[in-house]
């Protein structure tokens, strides 16, 4: 159950459209099914009323869309940002990826988003209708009555381990401001670190071999905004569209994670959209954890203009040969 | 025991590298027991380096060294002559099989006034 209502957001958007503050609205709209909410652009109050959705399935992070949208749109764009989205928003500003002046950001509180897979696991296949109220009511082809589940039980992994309810960027904030949270988001990484190399290899071999190279993780990632992606660039030496063998899955995922290292805000979109349910956030979080441990706490996107660990140094940094011991010592 | 073994032994025991010595003589210059000694700290270093160890073992100088470590402190090259003297002392004690101080002599020496530390260090110095 989200604290702020869909109506309130529609009203806000409609009034900003009306008074000319913004020329369009970046928001969520219903997809093919009730659970696949998709990003959409709304230009009028009618469109908003017809299609705008705000419920427990609005996971999409809009920051990345601003790059393309600000380039093509006259006037300001209204964007709704959940707390975790604001970090991506700031990170993109740090990288000069869009014009801040062309955006009107409205921060909205978030109670965590539902994981469709978990919903399916709880209610079975054949979902035909979902109503998000106090509880999530799921109607399926096979059950007579709607099945009610508690949103808290089906949260996305990233929301279970939510790192912050605080908005780090906005022009206007709806609802109450939250706090940066203590989260257990590195526990899973730590668990892997304490395994033997063989166990880790087996774990990742199992996970990554499911990859179908749909590129959804890259396409959704708000840090993956290159004008030309290395995976699409024949000159990069790693251009590749589909996995030919197990090496390329690893290669792709190492390169993808390394490319966003220091820039990844841990928004968790990669894992959310992965159709094969590969825990991609565990790769990103490994980098974040290492950087925190070796180079001091760093949260990408916490402020605009921060200097990421990989474009920085101190004269007494840890030597590359010493990094391996860390996990064991901590364990 | 041949000299080479003895020399290696001394160097290993003491952890001293006499090759670092630059013959400045500051150890002997700083030594408070200099006049009591037949062989002086700098000579310990050069004689051990040359394998000329017999005269040192047979000399009383071994027991004149106060082990005050002034030479160790002042040596600009970090040679640590006192540790070498100590090592030669140990070699002498081991060789003779007869200690200058035997364990059963100690109880007689004990009295309430003598600090225990003194007994322990004297024992360390004169036997092993």
């Amino acid at each position, binding site marked *: 159950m989200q604290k702020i209502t869909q109506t309130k957001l529609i009203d806000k958007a409609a009034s900003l459209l009306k008074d000319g503050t913004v020329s369009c609205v970046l928001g969520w709209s219903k997809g093919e099914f009730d659970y696949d909410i998709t990003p959409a652009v709304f230009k009028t109050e009618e469109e908003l009323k017809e299609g705008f959705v705000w419920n427990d399935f609005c996971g999409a992070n809009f920051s990345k869309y601003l790059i393309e949208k600000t380039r093509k749109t006259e006037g300001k764009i209204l964007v709704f940002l959940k707390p975790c989205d604001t970090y991506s928003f700031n990170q993109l500003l740090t990288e000069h990826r869009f014009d801040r002046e062309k955006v009107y950001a409205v921060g909205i509180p978030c109670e965590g988003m539902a994981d469709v897979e978990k919903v399916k696991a709880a209610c079975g296949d054949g979902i035909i209708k979902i109503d998000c109220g106090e509880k999530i009511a799921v109607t399926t082809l096979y059950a007579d009555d709607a099945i009610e589940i508690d949103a808290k039980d089906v949260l996305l992994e990233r929301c279970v381990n939510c790192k912050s309810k605080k908005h780090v960027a906005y022009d206007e904030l709806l609802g109450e401001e939250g706090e940066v949270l203590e989260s257990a988001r590195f526990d899973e990484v730590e668990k*892997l*670190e304490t395994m033997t*190399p*063989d*166990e*880790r*290899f*087996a*774990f*990742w*071999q199992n996970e990554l071999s499911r990859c179908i190279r749909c590129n959804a993780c890259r396409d959704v990632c708000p840090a993956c905004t290159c004008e030309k992606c*290395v995976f699409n660039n024949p000159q*990069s*030496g*790693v251009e590749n569209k589909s996995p*030919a*063998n197990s*090496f*390329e899955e*690893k*290669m792709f995922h*190492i*390169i993808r*994670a*390394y490319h966003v*290292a220091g820039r990844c805000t841990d928004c968790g979109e990669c894992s959310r959209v992965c159709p094969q349910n590969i825990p991609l956030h565990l*790769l990103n979080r*490994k*980098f974040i954890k*290492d*950087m925190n441990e*070796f*180079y001091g706490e760093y949260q990408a996107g916490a402020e605009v203009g921060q200097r990421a*660990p*990989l*474009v*920085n*140094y*101190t*004269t007494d*940094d*840890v*030597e*590359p*040969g*010493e*990094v*391996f011991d*860390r996990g064991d010592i901590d364990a | 025991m041949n000299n080479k073994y003895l020399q290696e032994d001394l160097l290993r025991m003491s952890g001293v590298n006499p090759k670092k010595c630059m013959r400045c003589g500051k150890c002997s210059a700083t030594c408070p027991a200099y006049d009591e000694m037949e062989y002086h700290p700098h000579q310990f270093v050069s004689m051990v380096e040359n394998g000329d160890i017999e005269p040192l073992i047979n000399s009383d100088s071994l027991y004149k060294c106060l082990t005050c470590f002034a030479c160790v402190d002042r040596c600009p090259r970090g040679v640590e002559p006192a540790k070498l003297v100590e090592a030669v002392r140990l070699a002498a004690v081991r060789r003779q099989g007869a200690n200058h101080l035997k364990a059963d002599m100690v109880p007689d020496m004990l009295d309430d006034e003598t600090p225990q530390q003194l007994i322990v260090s004297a024992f360390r110095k004169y036997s092993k």
Partner: protein
Amino acid sequence: MQMNEYKPLIVAFCCNWCSYAGADLAGNNRLNYPADVKIIRVPCSCRVNPMFILRAFQRGADGVIICGCHPGDCHYTSGNYYTRRRMAMLFSMLDYLGIEKERTRVEWVSAAEGAKFAATMNDFAEKVAALGENKRLEDLRCKR
């Protein structure tokens, strides 16, 4: 050439100013190290993109070593400091994926350290040889 004995393939990236010169010095002093080590000259260790390392493993390298000036002595003042962070992150990630950590190494070798260069290469080659072939990061299509 068919060899019965297993010979690892090692790619060494050496910065032009220190480590490449150190390798030259090892040669000048006729210090032996295995021929399995093949050196690629780069202007600075910070020129080494993690992608090059993955590429080498893909193409069948069994070990990759990056050599640069000692921290603080970089010809370009700060290049090797970036190398240190980048490689620390990459190596940690490879280890996390279960790749043997002995297959990668960063060593600081100055132009005067020919002996260190040879000793490093001997040691690295020995460690990599002990691991055997690189199976975990290989691309079968690139196999010899």
